[in-house]
């Protein structure tokens, strides 16, 4: 018998007001370390609708894992409230655990056991009967392309095989809500595509998916809605399309002919151009952020002509999610966070 059966407050009401299956208000967490206090999560409010794939994007150390660990009952909530699947996380963690699956950033499969043994134990810890769980494990291994390795010890798995097993472990009990912390890290493009396929499939069966990722393409292609986080705060939230529409301006990509000195001449000259808001380079490819591509382009080409830099190709591109992050924080997602840690004494 659970508390709910006895007429206690079950916390089943909070989440349903907004129709959200995951709902947080002003969620916070700080850690006390030797260097002082680290505010990992500083007031995050999210509503994730049932059946959504919700993506959590942000540079290293943004607070994604910490948020996930609070929602999955692994870390005590530092401040604010959270409900998952209609259950208050702080008050009834055990009820939350029954309804969710979690694939951590680390994985957590047992090295000395086989893939099959791992899955069966996991299913049984969720209360499944041996026969049911065995069948379910068989099915999952087939879907995630693991059957071939099913009876090999996990120690012998490749990184990608292991990651797929981790995902299988998270869904063996058919949870209502699935939390995935960087599920596609270490997967090759083929397996990443398979995983996306599988995640979409889970959603079509009614599972809500909350995932974190560093891959912009992944967030863009897979998620119904995304939230970008930085320094423990929400930077922006919406559908990928909405977010990209918020960034005014385009980017111009110029591929220069690979001639000595061309890059230097081009960057110096273009740096003086009033149209160019920001410029990044990747070898002889330059990416320029401009107000309006069609207006800026002729001017840019004239400038390059004047300093005698020949170009191989020019393209105009729409904003990416990276541009969204750049526009909001002044940094690029790709280089933000490296080696950075916020410490408040």
């Amino acid at each position, binding site marked *: 018998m659970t508390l709910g059966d006895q007429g206690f407050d079950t916390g089943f009401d909070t989440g349903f007001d907004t129709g959200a299956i995951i709902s947080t208000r002003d969620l916070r967490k700080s850690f006390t370390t030797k260097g002082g206090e680290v505010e990992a999560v500083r007031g995050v409010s999210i509503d994730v609708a049932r059946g959504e794939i919700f993506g959590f994007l942000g540079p290293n150390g943004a607070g994604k894992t910490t948020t996930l660990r609070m929602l999955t*009952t692994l870390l*005590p909530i530092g401040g604010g409230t959270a409900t998952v699947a209609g259950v208050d996380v702080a008050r009834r963690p*055990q009820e939350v655990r029954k309804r969710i699956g979690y694939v951590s950033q680390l994985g957590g499969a047992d090295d000395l056991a086989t893939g099959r043994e791992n899955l069966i134990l996991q299913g049984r810890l969720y209360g499944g009967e041996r026969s049911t769980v065995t069948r379910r494990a068989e099915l999952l291994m087939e879907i995630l392309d693991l059957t071939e390795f099913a009876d090999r010890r996990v120690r012998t798995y490749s990184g990608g095989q292991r990651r797929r097993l981790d995902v299988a472990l998270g869904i063996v009990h058919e949870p209502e809500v699935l939390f995935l912390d960087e599920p596609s890290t270490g997967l090759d493009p083929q397996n990443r595509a398979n995983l996306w396929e599988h995640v979409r499939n889970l959603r079509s069966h009614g599972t809500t998916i909350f995932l974190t990722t560093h891959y912009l393409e992944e967030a863009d292609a897979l998620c119904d809605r995304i939230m970008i986080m930085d320094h423990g705060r929400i930077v922006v939230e919406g559908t990928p399309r909405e977010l990209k529409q918020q960034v005014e301006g385009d980017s111009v990509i110029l591929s220069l002919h690979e001639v000595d000195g061309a890059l230097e001449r081009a960057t110096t000259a273009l740096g003086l151009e009033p149209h160019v808001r920001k410029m990044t380079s990747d070898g002889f490819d330059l990416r320029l952020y401009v107000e309006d591509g069609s207006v800026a382009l002729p001017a840019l080409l004239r400038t390059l002509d004047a300093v005698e830099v020949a170009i191989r190709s020019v393209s105009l591109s729409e904003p990416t999610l990276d541009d969204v992050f750049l526009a909001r924080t002044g940094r690029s997602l790709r280089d933000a966070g490296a080696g950075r840690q916020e410490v408040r004494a």
Partner: protein
Amino acid sequence: MKGLRDIALLFQRYTLQMLRNPVWLFVGFSTPVLYLALFTPLLKNLSHAPGFPSGSVIEVFLPGILSLLAFASGSSMGFSTIFELQSGVIERFRVTPASRFAILIGPILSGLTMMMVFDAVVVAIAVGFGFRVHFVGLLVLALLLALLATLMAAFSTATALLTKDISSFAAIINGINLPILLLAGVLLPISLGPLWMRVLAHFNPLYYLVQASRSLASGSLATAAVWQAFAVLVPMCALVLWWATRVFRKAVA
């Protein structure tokens, strides 16, 4: 009864894991055998020293070895906890609805079972060295050994969860183990030591076990040493289990 089911599942898992590790099995068996083979000849000469308990060397020494094994097998538990913490296995278990007590006690019980098997082998070998078996005494002793091993294992696991990394865990456990071992009279009877040592020993759970183990191995059940050992170990064990379960329930950040 879900708790019992969880315990059984996790017990199975850890036992299988140990059986799959041949190095571990080998070390587990060879350590006590080495003690017996290398120490007993040395002690032969000591047995005439004043203050040495009566009885043959093996009778004094074997109970000490069993106590030491229980202590060591318990306090080394945390090393595998650290490993499982770092590989994410514990976190994976903590997210399931499995009972927290089961996550703690599953591996402990598995370790206990292994220890009992080793103990039986050691006793069998000792019989070859002239050890006389008092069956009931040994059964009661097994109970006390299990209590101490559980106490140490729970303590060690909780310490591992709190320290989280191998170096600080090892430092703490070694720092605690050394005085406990020296003040327990495991290898040499504490009665050979000065008064302050004998007084300090009374704050040491292992000391009570060693005292009781000598009495039980020689077949005397109704001695002060035996009931004192139960009186000390039962509440301590319960207290530490309660604390360790609490640590599991709370953050393992």
